[in-house]
C-alpha cells in the first residue's frame, strides 16, 4: 500500500488508464504545462509521459473544452477534460447539460458519450466565491449525467478508473482540500463501481450521510461523540447520480436518525435530496428530525475568519447529532 495524496491518486488513475487505452486523452487549461509544478497535482507528469498529442493544453475556453469532449466521445474516444474550478462549470454547462447529458437520449439510444469532466472543488484556499462554489447539486439534477465526488484518495483512484471506462458522461469532482495529504492507496489496478455508496464506518445511533472532503469532518466527530456514548454510522455517498438509495435507506432504517453533511450551501443543496429520500422511504424508521449540516446560504467569503465560518465543521456536526439523539 502506497501513501499518496488524492492529487497523486488522480494522476495515477489517469496515467494508468492512458497506458491501458489509447482512446483516452486529456484536455484542459494548464493540465500539461501548468502554473503549479507540484508532484501533488492531479495532472503532474502526464504531458511528459504521453506528449502533447494526448495531453492537450487548451485556450481559456470552457465551452469548447466541454464540446471537444462531447464530439470526441461520440466518435469513440474517451476524453477526460478539466474544468479548473467549479464556478466555471457554468461556462461549460450548456455543453454538459444540454448536450453531453441529452444527446444520447436524443439519438434514441444510438450514440454514446463516454467522457469525463474533472472539476476542482472546495473552499478553504482563500480564493473567494468565484473560485470556490460547490455546485454538485446542479450536476446531480441532470438526468444523463453521472456525478462522482470521492472523499478519499483510494476512492478517487478506483472511481476515476470506473468513470473513464464508463460509456456515459461522468462529472468527477475533486475537492482540492484532499490533494495534499497522503493516505493509503492500493497500488494495483482496481475500480470502484459508480453508483455505490460506502459505509465508511458502521454505527448504531445516527446515520451521517456525507461526501467528498466532508467525510474527514464526519470522522473528526466520531471520537468526541463516542465519549458521549453516541455511535455514528458514516455513509460516504461517493456517487451522487445515480444515487445509491438502498445503502442510505438501510442505514437510516437501522439507526433511525439521519444527519446530512455537505460543504455546499444549504438551500437547494443535495442534502435536501437525501433528507427527502429518508422522509419518503424511511419515514417509519425515523426516530427524530432529520438534520442538515451545511454551509450557510452565502457566497464563499475571502477573509480567513469568514471562510472558516463558511465551512461546516465537526463542532456543528456534533451539535446536530446531539440535538437529535436527545430528541
Amino acid at each position, binding site marked *: 500500500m502506497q501513501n499518496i495524496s488524492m492529487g497523486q491518486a488522480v494522476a495515477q488513475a489517469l496515467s494508468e488508464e492512458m497506458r491501458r487505452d489509447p482512446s483516452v486523452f486529456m484536455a484542459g487549461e494548464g493540465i500539461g504545462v501548468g502554473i503549479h509544478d507540484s508532484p501533488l497535482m492531479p495532472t503532474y507528469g502526464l504531458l511528459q509521459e504521453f506528449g502533447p498529442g494526448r495531453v492537450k493544453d487548451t485556450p481559456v475556453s470552457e465551452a469548447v473544452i466541454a464540446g471537444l469532449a462531447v464530439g*470526441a466521445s461520440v466518435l469513440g474516444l474517451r476524453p477526460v477534460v478539466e474544468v479548473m474550478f467549479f464556478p466555471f462549470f457554468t461556462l461549460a454547462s450548456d455543453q454538459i447539460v444540454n448536450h453531453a447529458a441529452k444527446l444520447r437520449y436524443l439519438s434514441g439510444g444510438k450514440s454514446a458519450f463516454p467522457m469525463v469532466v474533472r472539476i476542482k472543488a472546495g473552499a478553504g484556499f482563500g480564493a473567494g466565491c468565484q473560485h470556490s462554489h460547490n455546485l454538485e447539486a446542479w450536476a446531480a439534477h441532470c438526468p444523463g449525467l453521472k456525478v462522482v465526488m470521492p472523499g478519499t484518495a483510494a476512492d478517487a483512484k478506483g472511481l476515476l478508473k470506473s468513470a473513464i471506462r464508463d460509456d456515459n458522461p461522468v462529472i468527477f469532482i475533486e475537492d482540492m482540500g484532499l490533494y495534499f495529504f497522503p493516505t493509503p492507496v492500493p497500488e494495483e489496478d482496481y475500480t470502484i463501481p459508480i453508483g455505490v455508496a460506502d459505509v465508511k464506518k458502521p454505527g448504531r445511533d445516527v446515520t451521517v450521510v456525507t461526501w467528498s472532503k466532508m467525510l474527514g469532518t464526519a470522522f473528526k466527530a466520531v471520537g468526541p461523540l463516542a465519549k458521549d456514548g453516541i455511535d455514528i454510522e458514516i455513509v460516504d455517498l461517493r456517487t451522487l447520480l445515480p444515487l445509491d438509495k438502498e445503502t442510505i435507506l438501510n442505514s437510516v432504517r437501522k439507526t433511525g436518525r439521519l444527519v446530512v453533511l455537505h460543504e455546499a450551501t444549504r438551500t437547494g443543496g443535495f442534502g435536501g435530496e437525501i433528507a427527502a429520500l429518508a422522509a419518503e422511504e424511511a419515514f417509519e424508521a425515523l426516530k427524530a428530525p432529520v438534520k442538515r449540516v451545511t454551509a450557510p446560504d452565502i457566497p464563499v467569503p475571502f477573509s480567513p475568519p469568514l471562510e472558516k465560518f463558511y465551512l461546516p465543521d465537526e463542532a456543528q456536526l456534533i451539535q446536530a447529532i446531539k440535538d437529535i439523539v436527545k430528541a
Partner: protein
Amino acid sequence: MTSQKKYELYRGMLLIRRFEEKLTELCAGGKVPGMVILCTGQEAVAAGVCGALEKEDVIISNHRSHGHLLAKGADPNLIMAEIYGKSTGYNKGKSGTLHIAAPEVNALCTTTVVGGGIPIVVGTAFAQQYNKSGSVSVCFFGNGAADEGSFHESLNMAALWNLPAIFICENNVYSGAQRMEDHTKVKDIATRAIGYDMPGVVVDGNDAVAVYNATVEARERCLAGEGPTLIECKTYRWRGHGESDHQVYQPKDEIACWMERCPVEKLQKELLDEGFITRQEVLELENEINKAVEESVRFAEDSPWPAPEDALEDIYA
C-alpha cells in the same frame, strides 16, 4: 463539375424542397406536433456541402436540419417518422424535428441550442485527427449563431490545432426576426475568420455548385493537415423562422426577389441548357421524388406511437 454530379445535387435539392413543401402542408393541416423549422430556399447549401463529403465525414446540424440530413443520405421515411414522433423514427420519437441524429450516415448530432453544435464539431474533428481517419467534420449553423460565444471559442481552438473541420455559416439574412444588421455590424460573417488566422470564404449560397466547390477546397485543406475553413453561404429563408411564424417582419418583395433566385430552378435550368436532362426526365424525377415523399408520410402515419414508458429508456448506455 460533371453534369452527372450537378444532376445529383439537383436531385438532392429537389428531394429537400418537396419533402419540406409537404411539411408546410402537413403543418398547416395540424398533422405534425411541435414547431417545425424548414430550410426552403436554402437547399443549395445542404446539397453543395454534403455533395462534397464522403460517407465517413461527419456533419453536425442545427434546428434547420432536414436539408442537411437528406443531403447526407438519411432516409426520408425515418426522418418523417421522427418528425411525427413515431417509434420508427430515427430516434424513436425522442428528438422530433429539432434534434434528429442519424449516426447511420454520420449525421451524428443535431442541436437546437443555437451555436451548440460548433464546439461539438471541434470534438469530432479532433477525433478524426487523433485517429488519422482521413475524414472531416462539418458544422452547419446560421448567421445568428455566429454571435454566440461558442462560435468564437470553437473556431479559435480548431484553427490552433489545425483540425479537419469545416464551419458552414448558412447566412439566410435572419436570426429569428432580427435581420443581419440588427444583430451584428459586420457585413460578412466570414470576416471573423481573420481573427483566428483561418481562411474565410463567402459563396453564393443559392448556387449549389459554388458551395460544392468551396467545400471541396476546404476538405482538401483539412486532409492536407492545413486546418479548418469558415465558409459563409449567402442565402435566404423563404419561409418564417418556423411554420408558425407569419413573417410579418419579412418584406414581401425581399422574399419575392430571393424566390427569383431559386437554387433548385437554377440547377435545373443549367442541366436543361446543357442538355443533360430533358423536360420529360424532370417530370419523371419530380414524380419519383413526390412518391418518395408521399411514402415517407405514409410510413410515418402508419407507424405506431412509442409506448409512454419508452420515455424512460435510452438515458444511459
